[in-house]
């Protein structure tokens, strides 16, 4: 069977952060990212403070720093974009190693990089401390229609099954000497895709029968009560509150120094 890539992001640990209800963590992450986003980019110290906050969360959540760093590779396209900004932006220029770079562009690049990185790391931490399915529960709890989260839950459950079916079909093709070489072979691939669709459809039907057999009547029973206590809300508010303070201080600095 599948190796369960779907769970790859979650890092199983026993920590305060892991135990927080999912919707609290989602709200906290969004709050943090918002605070970061509105921070004036010239206040470099503010971004250092945000980074420290996230480092604090990482330690409390007992996630290895190496794991977080490795996952930051998804940020690379981001970095590339930021890298080009100083060359293309207009305005005042500075010489760096013999290259004329736009000062605005440099600050812009710094802003994108810093804010982007903080946002990415915050999301990595959210995903590492919250199981995907409880994440879905949290989203539902925050008001997303249950039908959408139900679909996502099923996709999640059957991703591996479908991937496995796909793999079996590929092996079956290969076993009979088929190898996709050029565009003419697309017909064969299209046909297997059709077969895969049919299989998924039939599986859906059988799953539906199994659900009916166990009393399903259109509504998923609420199994995990993801209620949050006041203490848990307060605890998860710590990160966005601290970030909010930093953002406010950064703006104060901008206003008072001008």
């Amino acid at each position, binding site marked *: *069977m599948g190796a369960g890539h*779907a769970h790859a992001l979650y890092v199983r640990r026993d920590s305060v952060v892991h135990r927080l209800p999912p919707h609290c963590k989602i709200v906290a992450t969004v709050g943090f990212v918002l605070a970061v986003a509105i921070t004036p980019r010239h206040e470099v110290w503010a971004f250092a403070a945000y980074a420290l906050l996230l480092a604090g969360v990482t330690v409390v959540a007992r996630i290895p720093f190496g794991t977080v760093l490795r996952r930051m590779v998804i940020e690379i396209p981001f970095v590339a974009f930021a890298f080009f900004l100083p060359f293309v932006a207009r305005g005042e220029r500075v010489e760096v190693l013999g290259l004329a770079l736009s000062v605005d562009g440099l600050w812009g690049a710094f802003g994108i990089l810093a804010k982007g990185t903080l946002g990415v790391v915050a999301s990595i931490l959210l995903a590492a401390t919250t199981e995907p399915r409880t994440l879905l529960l949290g989203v539902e709890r925050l008001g997303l229609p249950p039908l959408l989260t139900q679909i996502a839950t099923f996709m999640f*459950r059957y991703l591996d099954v479908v991937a496995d079916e796909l793999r079996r079909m590929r092996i079956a093709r290969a076993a009979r000497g088929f190898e996709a070489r050029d565009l003419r072979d697309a017909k064969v691939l299209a046909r297997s895709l059709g077969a895969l669709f049919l299989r998924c459809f039939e599986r859906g039907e059988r799953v539906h029968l*199994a659900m009916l*057999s166990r009393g399903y009547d259109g509504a998923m029973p609420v199994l995990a009560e993801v209620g949050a206590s006041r203490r848990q809300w307060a605890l998860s508010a710590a990160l966005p509150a601290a970030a909010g303070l930093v953002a406010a201080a950064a703006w104060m600095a901008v206003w008072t120094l001008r």
Partner: protein
Amino acid sequence: MDASLEVSGLAYAYPDGTQALFGVTTSVRRGERVALLGPNGAGKTTLVLHLNGILHGGAGTVRVGGMPVDPSDKKALKEIRRRVGVVFQDPDDQLFMPTAREDVAFGPANLGLRGAALERRVEEALERVGMAEFADRAPQHLSFGQRRRVAVATVLAMEPEILVLDEPSSNLDPASRRELAEILLSLDVTILMVTHDLPYAAQLCPRSLILSGGVIAADGPTLELLADAELMAAHRLELPFGFIPQALSGA
């Protein structure tokens, strides 16, 4: 007679016109373990899907613990689906929730169980199939045999009157097959087991039905039926090499 299941004159044709059942009549006593044998395409799965009202619309009636299966009565149907626990052939069809625990809880939660009572029910069901320690695993991270066991637990959690299994031993390795047999033998519940695994039927079910061409072709003690070479050949049933039912009943 204390009948768990009564089927009488059941006939059914699929919407495309394939007539799968031609008047099936039989009954199963409470606590009995019965094997339903028959060649491919005999109508076994079709019969199973009638037992909890998923298929309907043909002639005849089905009663479970005296209660008629009537698909037009939503409330009665819910009770029927509680009483008839169907374990499907492919556990991936049966296990659709993110974890084993949630999957086992799905049925009883639909029956209205909540909180501690629900938890206890789930715990017990997983315990009975020896899967308690895997409660929080995702189904896709369990072996096939373990998934089959959880599938049995999902049904046990509904405390069914009758447990219906569609080919429970298929795809199991010999050890898992034996373990499942031990679990099934330990349960105090009526069992109807569809199977092509004749030694398994002999081991688990004192009585067998042979369904062939949409009718019950034979009904009797499993070992007697298996020993009747003519009957077996007539319904494309073949014993595995080296299996001699006479040796088991011979005593």
